[in-house]
């Protein structure tokens, strides 16, 4: 299965600032996915990142708040912009292989 490296693993940020999360996969993949897990909640898909085109965002998520880059087939970044305490969550990148989602280790974000 794909090996996914994600960083930072955790961060504590001030409101109003932005954080960029990086995700590196050890193989080339067409699609990468960004999920969010708010405290005590389910995992929710934020967007799908395709190489060479704009990311596709799910309902309730917008590009201005969560800009995504996908410069090549092994790498993607998610930025959480103008953060507020409500953005405190675990952010996860993932890829699909043989109909199964594989996840990075996640970024635990706390916004003060």
């Amino acid at each position, binding site marked *: 299965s794909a090996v996914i490296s994600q960083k930072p693993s955790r961060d504590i940020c001030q409101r109003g600032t932005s954080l960029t999360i990086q995700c590196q996969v050890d193989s080339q993949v067409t699609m990468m996915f960004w999920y969010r897990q708010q405290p005590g909640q389910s995992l*929710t*898909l934020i967007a799908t990142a395709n190489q060479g085109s704009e990311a596709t965002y799910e309902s309730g998520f917008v590009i201005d708040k969560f800009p995504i880059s996908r410069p090549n087939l092994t790498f993607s970044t998610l930025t959480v912009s103008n953060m507020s305490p409500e953005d405190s969550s675990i952010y996860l990148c993932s890829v699909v292989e043989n109909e199964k989602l594989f996840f990075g280790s*996640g970024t635990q974000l706390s916004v003060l």
Partner: protein
Amino acid sequence: DQQVKQNSPSLSVQEGRISILNCDYTNSMFDYFLWYKKYPAEGPTFLISISSIKDKNEDGRFTVFLNKSAKHLSLHIVPSQPGDSAVYFCAAPTSGTYKYIFGTGTRLKVLA
């Protein structure tokens, strides 16, 4: 609308006994289901899956049962071990897409 539901937020089981985790879904178009295990500070890891053409799939100590008429699936862990203590999520991909819908998770604690 929560299409995948895990109504038990937590479960405690004695070591060596059976753990049964339950999941209900509302979308009759789901045709593939997965279970994930998540330890603190780690990303979810794939555990076991089942296609809707089956009603049971077994992998070592883990068995998933699917009751399509009841729109219900369950994960059985026998025998339960302390290392199984984690949060378990059931998930299903929306038909024809790579959008996976997750339940809210059940925290399993296996007591030594």
